[in-house]
């Protein structure tokens, strides 16, 4: 909470240092100084900084109001502007994440299970390709050629489910590669530990060891980042969304900053910092659930 308060206040104060021209929605040339002063006064910009900051927090906390957009869609509440876009991004991101986890983790498990064999090499080749090639290359490839081969629409249409397939594939590829890589890596780490030798000495098969002992233990280091990753899917992907013309969050923050839509910037910074903080908290809780050695409650010595 304190983090969020600080982040937001600092951004708010910094934005007060910007030139005031932006508040006139690009029509500053045609306005007289009195009109300009009036607008600024209405926005409360002549008040001392602490009053401004106080008002900002008061509106936010008691009315859930983040102000209106100034440039992008003049007069529309920031929240109303963000939520529909975030919904699209989240929908795509969450579905892609499910694929990333399902395919990525199972790929990692299989690679670790047959380490050094054919499947492992194949997986490594995939990971290497995805990481080495600029995303733009294979995104374009998918959009141009895969759409032809599979007879899928090249652009997103809200009422056509088939048009969602390609963007989701694009969004998943990178995540699959990194999930597989980390899963494999942690599984290989775990397999060299003593308790695996003991499990084998009990008379377990390698597969039993891999599924009953190694998998869960390998997953834990990754569990912490899951909530953050899930929540941040609402920020969308700039490239995929513009490529397939999805009305998502992709470039919203950058556009807002470029066009100096101060209230929008504030709103989005609030959103993203909230996501980070909540995501980290959820990550910690997740670790606690998965790993009995971790406890959020203060306790004496662990032994």
């Amino acid at each position, binding site marked *: 909470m304190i983090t969020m308060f600080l982040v937001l206040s600092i951004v708010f104060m910094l934005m007060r240092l910007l030139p005031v021209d932006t508040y006139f929605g690009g029509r500053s040339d045609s306005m007289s100084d009195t009109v300009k002063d009036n607008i600024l006064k209405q926005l409360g910009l002549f008040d001392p900084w602490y009053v401004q900051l106080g008002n900002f927090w008061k509106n936010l906390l008691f009315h859930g109001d983040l102000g209106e957009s100034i440039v992008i869609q003049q007069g529309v509440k920031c929240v109303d502007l963000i939520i529909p876009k975030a919904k699209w991004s989240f929908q795509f991101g969450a579905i892609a994440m499910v694929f990333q986890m399902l395919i990525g983790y199972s790929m990692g498990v299989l690679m670790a299970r047959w380490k050094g064999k054919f499947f492992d090499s194949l997986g490594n080749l995939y990971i290497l390709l995805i990481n080495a090639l600029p995303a733009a290359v294979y995104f374009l490839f998918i959009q141009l050629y895969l759409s032809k081969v599979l007879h899928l629409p090249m652009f997103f249409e809200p009422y056509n489910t088939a048009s969602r397939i390609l963007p989701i594939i694009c969004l998943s590829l990178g995540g699959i590669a990194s999930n597989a890589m980390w899963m494999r890596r942690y599984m290989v780490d775990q397999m060299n530990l003593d308790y695996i030798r003991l*499990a084998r000495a*009990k*008379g377990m098969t390698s597969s039993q060891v891999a599924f009953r002992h190694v998998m869960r233990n390998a997953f834990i280091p990754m569990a912490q980042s899951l909530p953050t990753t899930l929540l941040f899917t609402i920020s969308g992907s700039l490239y995929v969304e513009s490529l397939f013309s999805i009305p998502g969050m992709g470039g919203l923050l950058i556009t807002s900053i470029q066009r100096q839509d101060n209230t929008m910037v504030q709103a989005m910074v609030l959103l993203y910092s909230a996501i980070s903080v909540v995501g980290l908290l959820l990550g910690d809780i997740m670790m606690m659930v998965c790993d009995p*050695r971790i406890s959020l409650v203060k306790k004496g010595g662990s032994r």
Partner: protein
Amino acid sequence: MSEMKQDVILSVKDLVVKFNLRGQVLTAIRGISMDLHKGESLAIVGESGSGKSVFCKTFMGLLDNNGWVDSGSIEYAGQDLATFKKEKEWLHIRGKKIAMVFQDPMTSLNPLKPVGKQIQEAFTLHNKVSAAEAKKRTLELLADVGIPEPERRYKQYPHEFSGGMRQRVVIAIAMACVPEILICDEPTTALDVTIQAQILELLKALQRKYGLTIIYITHDLGVVANVADRIAVMYAGDIVEIGSCDEVFYDPKHPYTWALLSSLPQLGVKGEDLYSIQGTPPNLFHEIHGDAFAPRNPRALKVDFVARPPYFEVSPTHKARTWLLDPRSPSVEPPEHIKNIRNIRKLKKEDAVNEQITR
């Protein structure tokens, strides 16, 4: 002799184990032959890298992936374990017939599973029983290895156990299916001295209760003296001397055993430097000619560098691989320390006799 034969539970013949390390082939076990008798405790002693762990791992097929049994046989219950290639063949041996206790209890348990489950798992792998029955057996096991409040401990995680308690859990896992042979790979090395004694007592008690055959792998001669019926001294992948505890301690024949015993701090004389063995163990990447210990042995004979000595029998239970026991070899006196031990033994015997007389 025929009676002895019946007692043999596991018989190793000319076992050779090799490893592939960075393209080079290393011979870790150089033709060991040995019998394990039912119900005995055999201690395998030797310095680090002498191959004692590797030797015992071959009994369970737990060699690392780059190692293999090159030749020789391991006979157990009418099967030759050395011919086992697939994991499936090992499954009815591992944990069920031959079990192992590992060195470091801090790392040999899965930190994320309740200990009860980990013990139960070992049991249910080899026995088809209901969950309730398996749990009952697990609680018995926990009580058996001296863990108080088994019901409560069953649900706890390894990090809630002390080192000694964890080793008890590891032993419970090994005992889950009441194996015939228990291999203890330095079971007390990671524990402090008071706990060491407790764990050794526990192992002895379990051995009496279930008629176990135990192999202790150790370099702690204190442990050996405490628990072993027989001692096998290993050097550079070979057993150089094997005999009963008394024979090896008080009447050692191989120069390496002499050197090993001479370097015991307990035998040192105050004010004198403690004996240490000169040189380093041989490089196992190369083929070894003659007696592997010869280059470090100040009393080495010429023949030691040329031909590998066979086993010479000192008594029916005691044999050693050294040319010194050949009738043709010149008589070589063992070092002072060793003679001292012999004297100690004589004194002890006289004491025992005196005791009997006074009674």
